[in-house]
């Protein structure tokens, strides 16, 4: 089967501002303010997409849809946001006659996930120390 390589690759430039005021949740008595969490990947679906891509070289749209157990519309909205934020790179090509959309995590995306993980660990550590 003829496999056409990258026809269109895009990594977005625009970036959703990082959350600056995810300070505390009720019940935490505001003793442990949350660090400036990256709102781009704090959202569950986007966090899942980034995590899945971090564990794989690349995944197609259908792979991600199946992994995240979601709809076409929902996945494409969140994947586009990550792409616009520069966290994932999207490659559109054709496999035979069928269009194929492939996603890869970018260096910025991997860094963002690592920062997010370290934020989460910091929160847990602070709570254990107190």
């Amino acid at each position: 089967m003829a496999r056409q390589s990258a026809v269109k690759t895009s990594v977005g430039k625009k970036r959703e501002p990082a959350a600056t005021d995810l300070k505390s949740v009720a019940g935490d008595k505001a003793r442990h303010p949350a660090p400036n969490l990256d709102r781009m990947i704090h959202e569950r679906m986007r966090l899942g997409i980034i995590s899945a891509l971090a564990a794989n070289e690349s995944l197609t749209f259908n792979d991600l849809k199946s992994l995240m157990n979601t709809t076409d519309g929902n996945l494409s909205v969140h994947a586009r946001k990550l792409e616009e934020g520069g966290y994932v790179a999207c490659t559109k090509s054709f496999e035979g006659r069928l269009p194929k959309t492939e996603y890869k995590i970018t260096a910025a995306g991997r860094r963002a996930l690592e920062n997010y993980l370290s934020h989460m660990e910091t929160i847990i550590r602070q709570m254990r120390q107190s």
Partner: protein
Amino acid sequence: MGSIHLVVPQNEEPPALHERAMDNLKYIRETMERATAFTGIPGWGQVAIGITALASSFISAQQKTFKAWLAVWVAEALIASLIAGWSMDRKARAAKMPLLSGPGRKVAFSLSPPIFAGAIITVVLYRAGLTGAIPGLWLLLYGTGVVTGGMFSVSAVPIMGLCFMALGAIAFFSPGLANWFMAAGFGGLHIVFGVLIARRYGG
């Protein structure tokens, strides 16, 4: 007519920040494990298993007794297990995920029951003198394990399992072609689907 009372939850506090952090970490780990298992079946490892199975088919076809034929395939099963374990471990390491957290565990859980059942039924068929049914049984049961394990994986894996099952079902009715079915199944199907998986999802 009774009156309706609204049940209002009593001042439920949302989860604390650290609980949400732990939940997020758990979610990330589980998603990564699932994603690794999803593409964790090693394509080139399957190709290697297919090549050794073709060689085993050729060698087993030369054997005069059923015991010798069986010994060849038992040796092949051991070699294939080693190749599968090594190649899955290699792929899991490349994804920085422990083998037993994802693909290894799922493959082991899905393949062990049908392989155990196959071993018991092989002994029963041998004692009953129905050795002609053994290749069909192996193909069918291996296919069953691949289909169930493949439910967590890319679509090529359960499709390969279905092909094994179909081949096994046909082999039951063509006992004279046992070695050809073994070669086509354990050799051919592993090679074809292995190349497909390796090209799409990496080695």
